[in-house]
């Protein structure tokens, strides 16, 4: 996917001025945030589970090569064909080839952010395939030629009125006078359209929430059942997963799953949790004949040896963005690439480079709410700061910013000079602002004063007053 992360400021400004988007974002707080809080409070061991889950993933990542080999062996024994794709190009080529070998015309898809990462739909469509997203949110995004704005709620940026308008625009074979007021009516209409695609699909592509080394299985968790229809009705099922989806055992999945839905939607567990181990066996009544697993690296193994390894613990629950005040203000598209919110601010520079995505780790107040809710205890603010350090070392910040920071730190490292400068500067500022108590404009702070006044200082420094106070006390 092409990135507009370098335009974050403009993207954000446009998002802030988009009334419909702002209305849609207003639903986050009462929805996913409140639901997660309830689920967390209802599970006494929730916080302990976070430690256990973190340790499981840390252990896996430290031994990823071994578990990957074990997974491949088990999956192959169960009848899977496992493909390793170092890059997005490789993954696209592998998947297209499987589709072509299957003689596919229609491809259905379950929800997969990795497929967004490699722009899979465009690639398959360019080769003449019809690609149908079957997750409701993904379907909405697809028919609007947009991208997901949230990793678990891809169409969270849309209002119900927009969805109705799109359905009337596109589903022209349905009666004009039909009623589309209730969400259930919209869902039913989408279901009707998608059922027909499921039945005609030649290939079904899904992501995976987990790959299990012990059994060679892939796991998807969904709420709509679309993933199950995608993977079991078509003759060929392709799983597309990135390397960090691997966990050692079934038991590990059972542990992490207890956190996943609670963190994501506040459910105890998703409506559907489906384990796939190989394709259809001779005794099975249904299921895909061919079962392929495409495992994507795309820059992740480079992160393994760095301080950013921790980001690979992510299980894509979306809690960090639901709780992020920046995400809540601007929505997901402003981030400009696949993964929005705090997880995107750490992962995106890792996958497309800090030069292209430098804004993202900077556009944070380090309020720490993301780390507080992350089920895998990823220290997101710390990792964002590491990106800022990488940016600073590569001198990617603007010259003006570096000069200002350099001047400030020159004084901050020299207490005598610092206090002297403060003693001279502050009374001037204080005198200027005393009557009104604030400034509507100050040099170099237009980002602040465009929207806010700057309260005026009291006019003398504490250090000066304290010195006088002590001298007075000694007399």
């Amino acid at each position, binding site marked *: 996917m092409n990135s507009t992360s370098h335009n974050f*400021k403009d993207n*954000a*400004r446009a998002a*802030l001025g988009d009334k419909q988007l702002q209305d849609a974002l207003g639903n986050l*707080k009462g929805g996913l945030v409140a639901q997660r809080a309830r689920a967390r409070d209802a599970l006494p061991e929730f916080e302990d589970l976070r430690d256990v889950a973190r340790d499981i993933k840390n252990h896996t990542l430290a031994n990823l090569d071994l578990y990957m080999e074990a997974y491949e062996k088990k999956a192959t024994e169960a009848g899977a064909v496992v493909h390793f794709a170092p890059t997005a190009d490789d993954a696209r080529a592998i998947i297209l080839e499987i589709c072509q070998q299957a003689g596919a015309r229609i491809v259905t898809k379950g929800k997969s952010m990795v497929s967004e990462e490699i722009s899979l739909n465009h690639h398959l469509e360019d080769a003449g395939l019809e690609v149908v997203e079957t997750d409701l949110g993904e379907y909405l995004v697809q028919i609007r030629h947009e991208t997901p704005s949230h990793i678990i709620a891809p169409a969270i940026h849309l209002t119900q009125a927009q969805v109705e308008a799109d359905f009337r625009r596109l589903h022209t074979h349905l009666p004009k006078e039909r009623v589309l007021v209730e969400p259930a009516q919209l869902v039913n209409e989408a279901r009707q359209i998608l059922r027909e695609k499921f039945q005609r699909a030649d290939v079904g592509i899904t992501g995976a929430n987990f790959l299990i080394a012990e059994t060679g299985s892939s796991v998807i968790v969904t709420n709509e059942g679309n993933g199950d229809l995608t993977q079991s009705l078509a003759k060929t099922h392709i799983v597309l997963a990135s390397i960090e989806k691997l966990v050692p055992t079934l038991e590990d999945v059972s542990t992490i799953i207890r956190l996943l839905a609670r963190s994501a939607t506040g459910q105890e567990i998703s409506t559907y949790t489906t384990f796939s181990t190989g394709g259809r066996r001779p005794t099975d009544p249904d299921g895909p004949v061919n079962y392929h697993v495409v495992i994507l690296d795309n820059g992740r193994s480079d992160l393994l040896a760095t301080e950013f390894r921790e980001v690979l613990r992510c299980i894509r629950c979306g809690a960090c963005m639901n709780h992020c*005040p*920046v995400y809540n*203000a*601007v929505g997901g598209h402003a981030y400009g690439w696949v993964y929005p919110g705090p997880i995107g601010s750490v992962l995106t520079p890792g996958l497309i480079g800090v030069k292209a995505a430098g804004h993202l780790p*900077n*556009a*944070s*107040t380090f*309020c*720490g*709410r993301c780390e507080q809710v992350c089920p895998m205890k990823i220290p997101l603010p710390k990792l964002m700061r590491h*990106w*800022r*350090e990488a*940016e*600073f*070392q590569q001198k990617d*910040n603007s010259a003006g*910013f570096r000069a200002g*920071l350099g001047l*400030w*730190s020159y*004084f*901050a*490292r*020299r*207490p005598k000079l*610092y*206090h002297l400068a*403060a003693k001279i500067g*502050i009374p001037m500022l204080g005198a200027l602002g*005393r009557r*009104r*108590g*604030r400034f509507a404009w100050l040099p170099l*702070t*237009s*980002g*602040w004063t*465009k*929207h*806010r*006044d*700057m*309260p*005026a*200082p*009291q006019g*003398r*420094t*504490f*250090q000066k*007053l*304290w*010195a006088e106070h002590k001298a007075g006390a000694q007399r």
Partner: protein
Amino acid sequence: MSSSLPRPRVGLFVTCLVDLYRPSVGFAAVKLIEASGCQVDVPETQTCCGQPAYNSGDRLSTIEIAKTTIAAFEKFDFVVAPSGSCAGMLKKHYPSLLKDDKAWGPRATALATKVHELINFLVDVRKMTAVEARFDGTATYHDSCSGLRELGVKDQPRQLLASVKGLTLTEMEDNEVCCGFGGTFSVKYGDVSNAMVEKKTHNIAAVKPDLLLAGDLGCLLNMAGKLKRQGSTIAVRHVAEILAQETSDPALGDGS
């Protein structure tokens, strides 16, 4: 607190914002710390905790500033700052910044054990349960992020505010959500920062308080700046000013 014991020596980490912007908060802090049975000193060799450099990715400058701060404060029994953000920097981030430095790592860790945010120090360390202060009116309290999430400052200020005569505390919605300050973030991403502080001032105004309080001057400057731009008459003060009844100076952003 037996008066026969020597009073613990507290080094006040003034914070750059209090030093430059609002010395009255520093004097309020001194008054409160002394009332808790300690003696206070203010080393002249302090400047800033280093967060502007730290959060801009300038690790080397931050380490230099951290060393200056450690050297200035390690002789005290306690180090107290009227800011959760700066106290968090000294307590949580200095040790991790210097962990690979054989000489300074242990010094940073030793200092960290003595560092406290002001209200947290008064309540949790000095077991203060009430203050001698009066404010007639209603107040609402914003939980600043670092104090709340790094240091667990939540109930302590409310406990002491409950002892202020005449004061009624009314909680606003989302008092734990960031106000949008974030240091340089507020200038670099001014539009996003503004959207965040707008939500905050909306929640503040909704409970119609006479007074907005918080424990960090950065957040207070941001919220006061927005409230005043909106023409609000809500007074904005650091919580220490109310607890110490140091209110002779105008509130933040109000003229004299």
